[in-house]
């Protein structure tokens, strides 16, 4: 990369310098007459750039091959992109996260990715790698963190309203901390009170991307005061917002669409335990 930068700066300074120098040196009234062509010169400035760009190509291609092929000992994490959040699943441990990818340091990680709706793209700027995430096809991208810390990842294929908010963090931790984190998260949470559990899930599952809790409509309807009220649906019917309605709206969001909103919410079927579902319903009930 530095090679390309220096080469570019060199040529830009050369061209700009010559243009400005000639414009000043031969300004208004110069009587000298320059040559109209010079084949040797033409060949020179065709051949030299050709050699230079081929050298850039070779470097770019070699590096790209390492970027696109994960080492054999890489740890797989399954990724689903959906409007507008990222879900991660650690296959050997049954642990799931949203918009947060926790990985051990000095361990190659391969993301096995698919989309449940439109095209997204997984960009890990700190690790200089990126790959589109497609519906109906699996793509992969890999990286290896060499230091602990928190690094952003972004969706870089435009995917609609909250495309800009489809981002999260890679948390790079020590191998021990990673195992502790896996231990802690592979157990079902049976102690946190339900509304509190729901509030945590509202953040960790990125529900807030589309739903507010303060009464203003966003991409989806606000959840404030929805429980116990009558909801007007897109097809003209109305429905009483009870526990069953909330449950259905989380698991099969397409079943009843609220009037004035687009059917864009992904299904959370299979992503929540019964207790977690109850927690979310209790949390929504508490938003009065």
């Amino acid at each position, binding site marked *: 990369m530095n090679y*390309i930068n220096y080469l*570019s700066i060199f040529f830009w300074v050369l061209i*700009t310098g010559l243009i400005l120098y000639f414009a000043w040196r*031969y300004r*208004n009234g110069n009587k000298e007459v320059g040559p109209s062509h010079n084949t040797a010169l033409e060949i020179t*400035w065709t051949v030299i750039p050709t050699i230079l*760009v081929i050298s850039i190509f070779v470097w770019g*291609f070699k590096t790209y091959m390492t970027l696109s092929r994960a080492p054999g000992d890489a740890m797989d994490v399954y990724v689903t992109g959906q409007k507008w959040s990222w879900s991660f699943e650690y296959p050997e441990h049954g642990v799931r996260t949203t918009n947060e990818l926790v990985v051990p340091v000095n361990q190659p990680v391969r993301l096995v990715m698919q989309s449940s709706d439109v095209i997204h793209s997984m960009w890990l700027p700190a690790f200089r790698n990126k790959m589109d995430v497609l519906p109906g096809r699996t793509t992969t991208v890999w990286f290896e963190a060499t230091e602990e810390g928190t690094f952003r990842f972004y969706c870089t294929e435009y995917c609609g309203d909250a495309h800009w908010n489809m981002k999260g963090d890679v948390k790079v931790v020590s191998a021990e901390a990673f195992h502790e984190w896996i231990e802690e998260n592979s157990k079902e949470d049976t102690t946190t009170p339900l509304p509190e559990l729901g509030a945590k899930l509202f953040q960790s599952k990125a529900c807030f991307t589309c739903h507010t809790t303060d009464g203003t409509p966003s991409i989806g309807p606000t959840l404030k005061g929805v429980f116990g009220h009558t909801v007007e649906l897109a097809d003209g019917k109305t429905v009483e917002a009870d526990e069953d309605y909330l449950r259905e709206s989380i698991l099969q969001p397409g079943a009843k669409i609220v009037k004035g909103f687009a059917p864009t919410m992904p299904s959370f079927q299979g992503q929540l335990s019964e207790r977690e579902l109850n927690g979310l319903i209790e949390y929504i009930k508490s938003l009065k």
Partner: protein
Amino acid sequence: MSTASDIATQAPSMPKEHYLNATRGFKSWALTVDHKRIGVMYLVSVLTFFLVGGLLALLVRLELLAPGGMFEQKTYNQLFTMHGVVMTFLFIIPSIPASLGNFFLPLQLGAKDVAFPKLNLFSFYIYVVGAIMAIVAMIVGAVDTGWTFYTPYSLTTDTAVVITVMAAFVLGFSSILTGLNFIVTIHKLRPPGMTWFRMPLFLWALYSTSVIQLLATPVLGITLLLLAAERLFGVGIFDPALGGDPVLFQHFFWFYSHPAVYIMIVPAFGVISELVATFSRREVFGYKFVALSSVAIAIIGFFVWGHHMFVSGQSEFAGMVFSFLTFFVAIPTAVKIFNWTATLYKGDIQLRTPMIFAMMFLIQFTIGGLTGLPLASLATNVSLHDTYYVVAHFHYVMMGGVAFAFVGGLYYWWPKITGRMFDEKVANIGAVLMFIGFNTTFFTQFLLGFKGMPRRYFDYDPEFAGLHAFSSVGSWILGLGFLVALINFVQSLRKGEIAPANPWGGTTLEWTTSSPPHPHNFVDTPTVSAGPYDREHAPAETGRAAA
């Protein structure tokens, strides 16, 4: 001290009969088959849409001035999409070829008109219909897909996708027919002595552009038609849920849209060749290399579309081939830059307004070209793709390149088109504002891209705030620069000095006829006995004292 007015040896006067006063009334314009009037109508149209697209861009930058929302997120998505659609399909593709090209192709060639004058008028009306459809689409439900209409998002959004892509479909026909017209004109209407290698380089550029328009645009038309059919009738071509392939759309789309980049830039190369030759008082260095490099770009440009898709899931082998070929399109472009620079060597350089634009073009376009290298190289592309780096790169080529060349060309040919001069001091102030504004706005975006700012983002993390604010302030300076140019043009029409036939000392045929030109361009058919930039056989420079 001398001013522009007192160096004139004798005050020129308007010719008795010219294309603007030969006939009068609305119908004389609406039904005209005069390429000059059609060129003027295109000019007014594309400048209007440039203004619309520019205002949309200012709104986009306004949203990005500071973190936090000013508009709704969906409104922002619609704004950048409309900016892209208007600028691409209504401004930049027709900009130079349809306006300046229409006006000056027959004049530079020494012909009375284009080969098919009625078809030319028909192309203009197709453009008008396409433009109206695009405006209707913006009003009934502005598209939020980005100007690239990527599937499957464009199949699912509730905005007016069908009418917008049909507008682009219709506009494509205008482009195809204009290309066809230009190709036939150059083949068939060259006057005695006008051999291929005696043609001005602007004509070589227009010829290469026309070939791309004719060959590539139908592919876009079919692609957009398929997209509309899928939305309307559920035919499964691109939607994986119906058994289609969303990446197929990207292949089809870029098969046109990459060559379209050359539809935009090659005519600008042609303009720059004219400006550099005239204001260096010199033949263009390596004329044949510059002429043939346009053709080379047109051909190689067809085989590089996959470089837009290095991270789309296409095979590594395809990535390798497209990367390799992409580097080869850089070579003829570099050759042009070197030749223009060499033209300045031992020239007699006149720093008039159009030349200042040509120099700004060279400085900015070189940045645009060189910043393409990390995008053509696979390893660096992977990280930079779909970031602000790409936004900066293509604005350096399109805005810093094409738009600056267009304005430079407009200043150059303005006296010929209108018969009036403009105030060069005001024009130069505008030029400096544009230069500062443009580089402030867009150089900043290279840095944003390096820092990790993705494109098409309604809002951003706080670490990007400083650079975004800087870029937005730049957009106001740039806007002011264009406003100064606009006011200058209007003032020139109202009370500009009468222009002589050849105010700049140009050597090509358009400067041998009156300003504004005779309705039939030339009173006698010109005969050509020398190259386009041969100063010995050139028309006399009028209206200026010997320097």
